[in-house]
């Protein structure tokens, strides 16, 4: 089949004024006082460029009909801004994009749902908001209800729904939009596993029906499962655009040793100003050979190279394991394990060997956090190496980890 370009983006830029975000002139008084201040401040204009923030910088790409493309990148890399521009919620500051075909964008599950209305009423309302005609909704109504597994609760106000039911219904409406171009922002990460699976299958069905999909996610597994091509955004620009495996491995190697968002809020965003930071985190097998894939039940050796800028009294190293979908699975603390360090200065290497890993098969990140022994002060919070656990049976359907139990049966004949 001849390839046809359905989405074209050329030099897309988006500028936000940080000033408006920081002091949003929510009241007229703020505006008046602010403009008075800037009128009396000399060189008032010199700072203007500092207040501009380019969420997107010269982003260009083309999507062909039937392609499924993932968009990855750190928080704030511009992924959501890009989808917001392509789905016409906000306009680009510069650049051009053209889209050929009916667009269904799912930036938030259940946008436009009204709490007081019933499931049935919300299907019509949400369907209309997403761009369906009443006739179309009438025709697809049964399929939507069926897919959502809501059943007899369809005439109950959605405010009485569990969050799971709510999400299922909302996704079902969007899934039946039958778009030619589907844009999805992280919404597949909600709902329970079974339903996620169902959504993935539905999306794949759309793909087979020649739809084009643009998919933003932090979940590399979902991206790999669905997309053949991935665009990696970094600080608003396209860092890499290529086959999934290739792009994801570049992203993963570059985002190693990144500071963690929540940590930045406490210790600041500049790694070089921290009292201590990890310069390398290695994942090795028990014997000390580098490895990234482990079998269920194996031990793992984690080696952390660090540098201290200021001496730290009684540091408490915490090495955590986060699943790729950001579930914090477990952590090990040097202090809790009775490994006391009285004072730390200069460079060093810390090594620990985990107990046999009983986590289910998935991808995991090592997280390193340095605190004091009372878990109050924070010195360092970084994301480290990624590793994969292997098991033919135990996956996330079994929970976070799996361990054997003792069983006993007594029957009364």
């Amino acid at each position, binding site marked *: 089949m001849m390839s046809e370009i359905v989405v074209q983006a050329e030099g897309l830029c988006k500028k936000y004024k940080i000033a408006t975000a920081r002091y949003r002139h929510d*009241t007229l008084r703020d*505006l008046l006082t602010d403009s008075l201040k800037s009128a009396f401040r000399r060189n008032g204009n010199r700072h203007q460029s500092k207040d501009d923030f380019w969420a997107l910088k010269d982003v260009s790409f083309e999507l062909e009909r039937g392609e499924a493309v993932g968009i990855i990148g750190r928080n704030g890399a511009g992924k959501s801004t890009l989808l917001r521009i392509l789905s*016409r919620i*906000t*306009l680009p500051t510069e*650049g051009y994009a053209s889209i*050929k*075909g009916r667009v269904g964008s799912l930036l*938030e599950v259940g*946008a436009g749902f009204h709490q007081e209305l019933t499931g049935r009423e919300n299907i019509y309302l949400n369907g209309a908001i997403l761009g369906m005609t009443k006739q179309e909704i009438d025709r697809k109504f049964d399929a939507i209800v069926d897919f959502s597994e809501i059943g007899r609760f369809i005439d109950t106000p959605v405010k009485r729904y569990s969050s799971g039911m709510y999400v299922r219904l909302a996704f079902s409406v969007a899934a039946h939009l039958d778009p030619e171009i589907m844009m999805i922002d992280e919404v597949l990460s909600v709902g329970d596993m079974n339903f996620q699976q169902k959504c993935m299958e539905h999306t794949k069905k759309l793909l087979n029906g020649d739809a084009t999909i643009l998919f933003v996610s932090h979940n590399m597994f979902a991206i790999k499962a669905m997309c053949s091509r991935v665009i990696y955004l970094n600080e608003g620009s396209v860092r890499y655009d290529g086959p999934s495996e290739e792009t994801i491995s570049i992203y993963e190697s570059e985002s190693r040793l990144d500071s963690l968002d929540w940590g930045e809020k406490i210790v600041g965003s500049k790694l070089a100003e921290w009292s201590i930071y990890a310069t390398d985190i290695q994942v090795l097998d028990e014997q000390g050979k580098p490895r990234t894939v482990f079998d269920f039940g194996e031990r793992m050796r984690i080696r952390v190279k660090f540098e201290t800028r200021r001496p730290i009294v009684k540091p408490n190293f915490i090495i955590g394991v986060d699943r790729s979908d950001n579930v914090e699975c477990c952590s090990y603390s040097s202090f809790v394990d009775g490994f006391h360090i009285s004072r730390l200065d200069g460079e060093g290497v810390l090594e620990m060997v985990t107990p046999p890993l009983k986590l289910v098969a998935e991808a995991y990140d090592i997280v390193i956090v340095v605190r004091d022994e009372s878990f109050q002060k924070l010195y360092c919070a970084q994301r480290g190496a990624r590793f994969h656990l292997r098991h033919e049976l135990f996956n996330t359907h079994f929970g976070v980890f799996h361990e054997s139990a003792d069983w006993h049966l007594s029957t009364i004949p």
Partner: protein
Amino acid sequence: MTSTSIFTTPFVEIKPSRGVFQLDLRAVWQYRELLYFLVWRDLKVRYKQAAIGIGWVILQPLVTMLIFTAVFAKFAKVPSDGIPYPIFAYTALLPWTYFAQALSRSGPSVVGDSGLISKIYFPRLIIPLAAVITPAVDVVFSSVILLAMMVWFGMVPTWGVLALPLFLLLAPMTALAVALWLAPLHVRYRDVGHALPFLIQIWMYASPVAYPVSLVPERWRVLYSLNPMAGVIEGFRWALLGKASPDFMLMSVSAAFVLLLLLGGIVFFKHMEKTFADVI
């Protein structure tokens, strides 16, 4: 695939907006079903878990009329141009209650639907439009009372009743025209939300709801007639109660003023809507 997508493959261009007059009103027409559903949503939601439900629509102008009759007609002895005061007041309260409702809903409507605006594309004009249309449904119910009162007081409408649709149209147009200015301002400045009830209150005193226009000094009449709601209310009284015909010259002035305000409002709204999702 749906039949719509076979025949019309939509093509959308996205680029920074430069022109001031790209109004794209056709998109509003394409999304008319959404308009219907938003009105339907507001109507449904309004009377869920309300015991008297639709009764509120009738009760509001009815009770106001009773209070006005007591305070203005009995205590203050306000004249009513020879028309029984209760029906004199109710004929004005009908369009006024609608207008006050429409304005107080549509003014903050864009901020009220911020969840939609920041997540989904659709022509933003639909939002204030829906907010102006919703209370129009109430008018149907409250006019039943008016009809009953007309029979009770033996009022016979004049030929002017044929012009009633014109006045019926002028009220929502005025509400929409003002809302198109207020709603975008409300996105930026939440002050609008605080000022709006106050504005509506002042506006009522500046309209001949509780008193006849004849009480307004002659030299203020021109300025007074710039208030489109004065025209609407006078028109209602003229059409339904056979009151002496209003000043058509001044009424065309206020109609022209509304039209100007409306057109300017559309341009202003379209200009401001570009940043709604970024600011809201």
